[in-house]
């Protein structure tokens, strides 16, 4: 498999989100890494969102009912101005600019070459190229089923999960099909009728029908041999001719109403369906306080969007209580939002079954109304009020159920009234059947005519019931065959999903553990990995001081959980990105202390040195650490103003240049110089492992130049380094500035000329220990065969015995 190789050479935004007019971010022709610093709200995430929109045509943070496609357009953009995102790559044939056509609500790319289409719609589409706090929090708090989906998405296995889910859903629909249930009921009813009322036994085949029909025809003295449906039809026509015509048709019509009434009577009682459905509804609404929170669903959904954009919030916007930090509140909001999502799904399930029951009730009232009309047509007197009453009571029950569900209140139905009215309808139908029987009797049929009519009825009813049964049995068999075969496909896909995900987990877990461990140097935290849980879930697991922690968030601190999310993302990038060799880390540090930050930079340095990384941060301190760790990166500072949109400013690698510029403006720089020299001496001493007296905690960080300079001098002497004889070293050592610092005098006492000279001396002093690429001479980088040590790239050396 080929390695991903595409890096970005520049990003150009026009009127996109925070960017007004043209905003280029130049990343050089070889696709260098870049760190961007800016306070929250200054537009850093516009870069991530532009990349997301370019590939995914959407921005996850802007999804939801309050958002619209045109929200990607800069608020200050003039009508008619184009909104574009241009990404330019080391593979120049992939360069493309995406334009949003607001009028037509559509997007277009200016690159229509097949190579770009294959890249954009293929591997790049599934590459993992950006990580932000929201994505980490989402993944950590996702249910195990959602994690499986997310993981599948990351590694390009989404199709398997989707297709498996479609097959399962179609299978489920087959198994629960109301049609299948009706067919089974009808088959059972027909066979019952054939046994009790027609042939005296169940008949489910044409052969059986022909045999039984031949027997009955003999009672009409018709000796025709029935071997086909045509034979049967012919015989029936003959049988009809043996009957008195008017009386026969009247009897047939009356028998038909009788049959209909008894069918309605058999299925009219709805209490079991309603009870079952209401029981699950009542269980769900028992905890009203919990259920009431579902009203917060939309609010939390919106809160998530707001917090995503403003981490500076310190107080809850609703209750105004202190919340520590926006990140903490965001995690909590996402957690609650997900729990409510589950509740909402349950509620939707109950709503569906309630709707099914209501449809059943509506069908019963329609049947009763139709029966009422038919009885009236036959001019049979009956208790019409009882039927009307039934319809009213059922309609009232439907209203109560709908209203109760709307308010999520208890649904109480008058069960005794329902039982009573059902009983009355059955009584009415029974009485109508008796009347019909009397009417049939009044047809004054002779016993011979009755016998003939009875046989004829049995023949026609028998024929219909058997044919209906055969058709129902055939359809049931077709359903069952499909259920069996779809189960095979479902089980194949489930196995495929499991095998593939297991393969993915095996591949990725080693690195998740490696990266997590690199970020958390704690012996008690081991074996961080993702594993399959149950039929279709995926969850992180971890050994936490000897106990298995699943999910790890039960045991881990916020920063540890955060680092688990970062470890997973980086492992996914390493193993599954197929096209792009770049990724964006958008303000991913949550509750990270200094050690975590250093470890993350070490991890990026060790494992992703050949990747292009775009790192966005709102923390100046970390930005400075990145500068020291990766001096060959591009550094930018970002600002946003309504009238200008986002602007980038180059951030100088070395603070001395800024001090020089400040001094040139006539500002006092004594303290700046002292701070700079202290920082420089700390880096040098750290790199050369210079010994200083032991101090606890933060006091160790507070060492001043007056202490560090003599310690460095002593180390140079101990290792017989030539540095102490170098003029650049001696010049600074002998300078009034250093003498003042060492004796704790105020360095601002110098003249402008002295200050400029001191800046030069410090720069020359720095260059003894730090190369042009910003790498310090390191004790760890010994020059083989010589008593020398060098910087990491080996371009400067000093004597070191």
């Amino acid at each position, binding site marked *: 498999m080929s*390695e991903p190789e595409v890096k970005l050479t520049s990003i150009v935004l026009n009127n996109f989100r925070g960017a007004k007019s043209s905003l280029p971010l130049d990343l050089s022709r070889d696709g260098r890494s870049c760190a961007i610093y800016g306070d929250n709200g200054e537009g850093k995430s516009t870069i991530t969102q532009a990349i997301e929109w370019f590939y995914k045509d959407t921005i996850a943070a802007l999804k939801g009912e309050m958002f619209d496609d045109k929200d990607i357009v800069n608020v200050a953009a003039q009508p008619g101005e184009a909104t574009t995102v241009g990404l330019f790559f080391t593979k120049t044939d992939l360069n493309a600019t995406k334009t949003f056509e607001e009028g037509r609500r559509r997007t277009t790319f200016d690159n229509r070459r097949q190579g770009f289409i294959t890249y954009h719609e293929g591997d790049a589409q599934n590459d993992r190229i950006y990580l932000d706090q929201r994505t980490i929090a989402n993944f950590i708090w996702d249910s195990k089923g959602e994690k499986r989906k997310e993981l599948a998405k990351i*590694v*390009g296995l989404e*199709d398997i999960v989707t297709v498996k889910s479609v097959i399962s859903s179609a299978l489920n629909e087959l198994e629960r099909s109301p049609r299948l249930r009706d067919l089974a009921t009808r088959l059972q009813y027909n066979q019952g009728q054939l046994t009790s009322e027609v042939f005296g036994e169940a008949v489910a085949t044409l052969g059986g029908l022909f045999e039984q029909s031949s027997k009955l025809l003999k009672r009409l003295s018709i000796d025709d041999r029935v071997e086909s449906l045509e034979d049967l039809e012919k015989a029936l026509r003959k049988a009809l001719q043996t009957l008195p015509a008017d009386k026969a048709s009247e009897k047939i019509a009356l028998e038909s109403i009788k049959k209909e009434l008894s069918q309605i009577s058999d299925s009219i009682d709805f209490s079991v369906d309603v009870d079952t459905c209401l029981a699950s509804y009542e269980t769900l609404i028992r905890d009203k306080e919990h259920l009431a929170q579902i009203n917060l669903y939309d609010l939390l959904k919106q809160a998530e969007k707001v917090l995503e954009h403003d981490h500076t919030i310190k107080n809850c916007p609703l209750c105004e209580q202190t919340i520590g930090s926006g990140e903490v509140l965001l995690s909590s909001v996402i957690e609650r939002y997900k729990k409510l999502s589950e509740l909402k799904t349950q509620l939707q399930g109950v709503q569906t079954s309630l709707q099914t029951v209501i449809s059943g009730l509506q069908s019963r009232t329609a049947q009763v109304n139709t029966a009422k009309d038919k009885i009236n047509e036959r001019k049979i007197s009956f208790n019409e009020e009882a039927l009307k009453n039934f319809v009213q009571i059922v309609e009232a029950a439907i209203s109560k159920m709908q209203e109760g569900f709307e308010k999520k209140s208890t649904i109480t139905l008058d069960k005794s009234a329902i039982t009573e009215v059902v009983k009355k309808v059955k009584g009415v139908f029974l009485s109508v059947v008796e009347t019909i029987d009397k009417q049939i009797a009044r047809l004054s049929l002779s016993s011979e005519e009755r016998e003939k009519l009875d046989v004829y009825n049995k023949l026609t009813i028998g024929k219909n019931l058997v044919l209906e049964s055969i058709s129902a049995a055939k359809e049931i068999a077709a359903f069952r065959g*499909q259920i069996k075969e779809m189960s*095979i496909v479902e089980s194949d896909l489930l196995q495929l999903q499991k095998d593939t995900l297991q393969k993915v987990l095996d591949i990725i877990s080693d690195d998740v553990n490696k990266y997590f461990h690199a970020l958390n140097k704690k012996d008690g935290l081991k074996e961080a990995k993702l594993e399959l849980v149950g039929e279709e879930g995926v969850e992180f697991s971890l050994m936490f001081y000897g106990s298995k922690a699943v999910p790890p968030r039960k045991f881990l601190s916020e920063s540890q959980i955060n680092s688990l999310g970062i470890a997973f993302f980086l492992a996914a990038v390493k193993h599954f990105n197929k096209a792009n060799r770049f990724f964006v880390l958008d303000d991913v540090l949550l509750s990270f202390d200094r050690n975590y930050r250093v470890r993350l930079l070490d991890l990026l340095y060790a494992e992703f040195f050949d990747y292009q990384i775009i790192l966005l941060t709102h923390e100046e301190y970390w930005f400075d650490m990145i500068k020291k760790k990766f001096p060959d990166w591009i550094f930018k500072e970002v600002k946003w103003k309504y009238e200008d949109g986002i602007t980038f400013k180059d951030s100088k690698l070395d603070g001395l240049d800024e001090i020089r510029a400040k001094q040139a403006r006539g500002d006092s720089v004594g303290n700046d110089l002292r701070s700079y020299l202290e920082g420089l001496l700390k880096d040098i001493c750290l790199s050369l492992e210079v010994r200083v007296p032991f101090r606890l905690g933060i006091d160790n960080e507070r060492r001043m130049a007056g202490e560090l300079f003599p310690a460095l001098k002593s180390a140079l002497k101990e290792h017989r380094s030539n540095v102490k004889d170098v003029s650049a070293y001696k010049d600074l050592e002998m300078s009034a500035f250093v003498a003042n610092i060492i004796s704790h005098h105020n360095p601002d006492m110098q003249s402008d000329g002295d200050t400029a000279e001191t800046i030069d001396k410090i720069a020359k002093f720095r260059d003894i220990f730090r190369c042009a690429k910003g790498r310090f001479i390191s004790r760890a980088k010994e020059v083989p065969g010589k008593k020398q040590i060098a910087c990491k790239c080996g371009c400067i050396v000093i004597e070191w015995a």
Partner: protein
Amino acid sequence: MGNDLKRGDKILTDYFERLHTDGKISKELREKLHELWNQNKLKTKTHITNALDSMREQQTDE
């Protein structure tokens, strides 16, 4: 770094090809699944549900 893991769509294409040629399920269903997958119509339930309905109808009418 990369790995030898195939993408989901490739894995499914292989699966539906295999299903198409083996005799695990009826010819009608395996041909229909193969066709729907190749037409990118297995990402939603609609097409497969309609296909199942029409296959049942055909079987019942025979």
